[in-house]
């Protein structure tokens, strides 16, 4: 930088970087402390009407709606039931656990695709589980169900 204010002479001025570095040090520390390195996402579900929700709006019902329920049993079996609509008899499908005892989510995905292919008007499923079912297993199976049926109800009662 050149200073022309003097009497004919020029003077070099050095930029003082120390306060700028101080500011950056504080800023980086603050951002490091407050930054979240976990990516959180959410899964949208609704509470089904069989809970004790006295103030919840009643579900819209048609004459004979086709409904599907997904029940997770204590023995890691997945029970799918389709009823209503023009069905004369309830359809009951049991999916056995995998050989290692885990929930068979692949079979669930295939079964849901087959069911929705047969009854295209089905767009929602009501999920309930045995009291001992772990939350991680529940959300994992809800995630599988949401691939085919975006609207998932969870039983709160």
């Amino acid at each position, binding site marked *: 930088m050149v200073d022309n204010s003097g009497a004919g002479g020029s003077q070099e001025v050095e930029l003082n970087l120390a306060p700028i570095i101080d500011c*950056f040090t504080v*800023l*980086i520390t603050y*951002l*490091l402390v*407050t*930054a*979240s*390195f*976990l*990516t*959180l*996402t*959410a*899964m*949208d*579900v*609704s*509470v089904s009407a069989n*809970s*004790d*929700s*006295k*103030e*919840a*709006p009643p579900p819209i019902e048609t004459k004979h709606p086709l409904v599907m329920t997904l029940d*997770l049993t204590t023995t890691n079996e997945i029970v799918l039931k389709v009823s209503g609509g023009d069905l004369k008899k309830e359809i009951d499908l049991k999916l056995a656990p995998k050989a290692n005892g885990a929930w068979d989510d692949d079979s669930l995905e295939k079964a849901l695709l087959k069911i929705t292919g047969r009854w295209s008007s089905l767009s929602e499923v009501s999920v309930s*589980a*045995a*009291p*001992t*079912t*772990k*939350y*991680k297993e*529940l*959300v*994992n199976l*809800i*995630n599988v169900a*949401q*691939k085919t049926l*975006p609207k998932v109800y*969870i*039983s*709160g*009662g």
Partner: protein
Amino acid sequence: MILLVFLLKNYSASLTNLAPSSQLALPEIAVSAKTAPKESLTIEVGREAVLVDQALAVKLKNFEFPANETQDTMGSPTIAQLMKRQRELRPNPNTESSVVVMADQGAPYSTIKRVIASVAGAGFVDLQLVVVDPQ
């Protein structure tokens, strides 16, 4: 400078200010229908406690509710009461129905169900179940 740019980008990318407790192990799932958690009331279900909007609601013992909270066959009276109060405090109490649920991956369905029943009892019927995206 690169670090600063990365941190600023990372900071702006986090849309919501959700901060689960350090003891809470959220389930890690690659969600098919991703949604960003909304800025709404949060319920946290941990091993030792249920928190409503980061304030202690009910103390748990290894995910189990105390006896006085299980007299009602479905919900927990304390959580139900807190949720009703929260609902009255909302700017639009008649239309506000969503709640963000952060639960420990090991929590049994019996506990989750009781919390859900209490929450639904106050009219919060749209739940956002928060999970960690493994990316």
